[in-house]
């Protein structure tokens, strides 16, 4: 099903489990950005998680069943968009891989995968959004989350849009493309190693002198925010969509509500 170019594209928002549970405001920021760009956004109820915990733990059977459930729920839409490079990467790159032994299911997964996008690259690359109507006072540094960067090629897109946010200054960190040490279950399975990696990341974040750290994946953000808070840092951590949508006035990740 596809709409004519003039009609408003129908987007199914894949909320992602972390945004759903921990930071719904990112979901609403995503909805606003896409609605502002002329999309009709819907949120299918039959979604939970993209299945990465199973897939990356070697549990292919459960991963497949979850993939089937997601594909079924999102098939009616023109586009499937997630505010996460990691989950979008799972839907786009790994779902087809899960059905390699079943030509019919594989084709279905391939067709589905074609419609899947990470939020910011969807705005710029598909919808052609060149600027956002938002303001932000202060400097930010942007961390390239691994899957978004390497599976989906998300790198310039968020920076381009951030540059159009009034009052915002970007201060690049050293090695923004180096992993933050989250890695899904990795961070709880190998906490010592994960801690070493995230400590190096927060060092580079602090070096920039930026007041806010942004990224496009809540997993990485919670990891880095959790470390910065433990270190007693005042740097605020937010999902890039919050800033782009002009919705960065609530408490940052890991901060208490003001007042």
């Amino acid at each position, binding site marked *: 099903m596809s709409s004519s170019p003039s009609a408003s594209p129908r987007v199914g928002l894949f909320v992602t489990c972390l945004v*759903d549970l921990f930071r719904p405001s990112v979901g609403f920021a995503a909805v606003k950005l896409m609605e502002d760009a002329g999309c009709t956004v819907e949120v299918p*109820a039959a979604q939970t998680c993209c299945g990465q915990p199973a897939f990356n733990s070697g549990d292919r059977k459960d991963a497949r069943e979850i993939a089937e459930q997601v594909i079924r729920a999102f098939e009616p839409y023109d586009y499937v968009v997630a505010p996460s490079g990691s989950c979008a990467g799972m839907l786009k790159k790994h779902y087809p891989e899960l059905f390699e032994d079943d030509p019919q299911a594989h084709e279905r997964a391939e067709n589905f995968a074609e419609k899947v996008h990470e939020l910011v690259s969807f705005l710029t690359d598909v919808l052609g959004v060149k600027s956002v109507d938002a303001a932000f006072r202060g400097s930010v540094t942007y961390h390239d989350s691994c899957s978004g960067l390497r599976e989906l090629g998300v790198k310039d897109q968020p920076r381009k849009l951030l540059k159009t946010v009034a009052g915002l200054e970007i201060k690049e960190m050293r090695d923004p493309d180096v992993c933050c040490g989250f890695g899904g279950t990795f961070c709880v*399975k190998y906490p010592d190693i994960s801690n070493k*990696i995230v400590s190096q990341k927060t060092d580079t974040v602090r070096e920039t002198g930026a007041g806010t750290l942004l990224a496009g994946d809540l997993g990485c953000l919670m990891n880095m925010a959790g470390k910065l*808070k433990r270190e007693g840092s005042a740097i605020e951590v937010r999902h890039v969509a919050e800033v782009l949508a002009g919705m960065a006035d609530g408490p940052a990740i890991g901060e208490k509500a003001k007042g």
Partner: protein
Amino acid sequence: MEIKSPTFKDNSAEALKDVNLQKALGKVRTGFIDKRAKAAEALPEFEDLRDRARDIKDHVLDHLDLYLERYTEKVEAAGGHVHWAETAEDARNQIMEICRRLNARTVTKGKSMITEEIGLNEFFEENGVTPVETDLGEYIIQLRGEHPSHIIAPAVHVTKDQVEEEFRAKHTHLDPNRNLEEPTTLLGEARAVLRQKYFDADVGITGANFLIAETGTSIIVTNEGNGDLTQTLPKAHIVVASIEKIVPTLEDVSQILRVLARSATGQDMSVYTTFSTGPKRDDDPDGPGEYHVILLDNGRSSMLGSDYQEMLRCIRCGACMNHCPVYHAVGGHAYGWVYPGPMGAVLTPSLIGVDKSGHLPNASTFCGRCEAVCPMRIPLPKMMRHWREREFERNLNSATVRYGLGVWAYFAKRPSLYQFMTGLSMRALGLLGRTKGRFGSLPLAGGWTKYRDLPAPEGKTFQQQWAERQKTKQREAA
């Protein structure tokens, strides 16, 4: 070599506390990466060359028997001998037989990971033969009684000060007040000490970066030239190589060489690329009297046609570990066997069994940087995941992990139930964490909160709020 992979967690905890190691690892994090990036950028056809290199090796792996046969014929036609070794033990025995026949007491060695794999040095020592490592890095770790921690920079875990200390302790015949400040003086000293050993050695052993089927030639690439002396001066040159080192032609090799050094050290070419075909001919000015090739399988043929076949494209450039955040954090020894880093995480389970090395493919964040730089385009994360699947199929994960995953999957496959449950618990958690916005500790989240706070959820889930928003909209519309 003793397998210490099962204690990967303890090994890495030790590594993280090791001040010298952590200092040494800093070099890996910066040096190699910048150099590779510059080299790749300076060559416009670099990405195309990677594709071609991959295709060449894929072709070989699909016709491996044919090329091995051709190679063997050519080696023998040049007066060399090929010995097929199915296991590490076979290889050790074949090497020992040659050494015994030649009455070898001292054996010089060029840098080779394959002789680590077959545990050759220990075996030599048990049998009264003295192995002398001639590569500077290998020489350093031999003095220290260690194994390589990196496949192209074996002593990368050692600081310069530690090398100086070791040299002063072991080279007692030299002036104790000599100046060893500069890395070049260290290299000079090692060279001087080694010089005599080249002449003392009865047998020289090298690995091979490539074996050329068309000509029966073995190739090594080095930066110190030690390999050349190792293989030309003694009575016999023994090449130890695994079966997947074969490439069809000289032309193919020159393609792959163009990506090898660039990916490894950022050099256009290594300083020495040495081709050896057979023993010394009558009109050659020098060369070994005998030329032997030990062709080692050691589990590789079982990787053909499996999920891990692509791993056999590996040319041991080390780029994957140079770019690996886990390797940067813990270094190579923590992996507990011969091959560290991402390539080790895939290869080790193939060679020694996933039951002994299950941590290796699990200890990855799947950041994908290894695959992004691998000159042979080996999908390392995908193959690590395949190992996790094997573990899962064989029930090798801990009961807690399986149970946790089972409960999670049960809910993840039942969206309404999932939303009901998560709606309740996130509200509770949100209320609990409201005063600070985060948790310093939380039951069942110890792995997380040991080192970092857990950001508290905002309260109601997105799904709950979205449903409310839809209801309000409908009401307004009505």
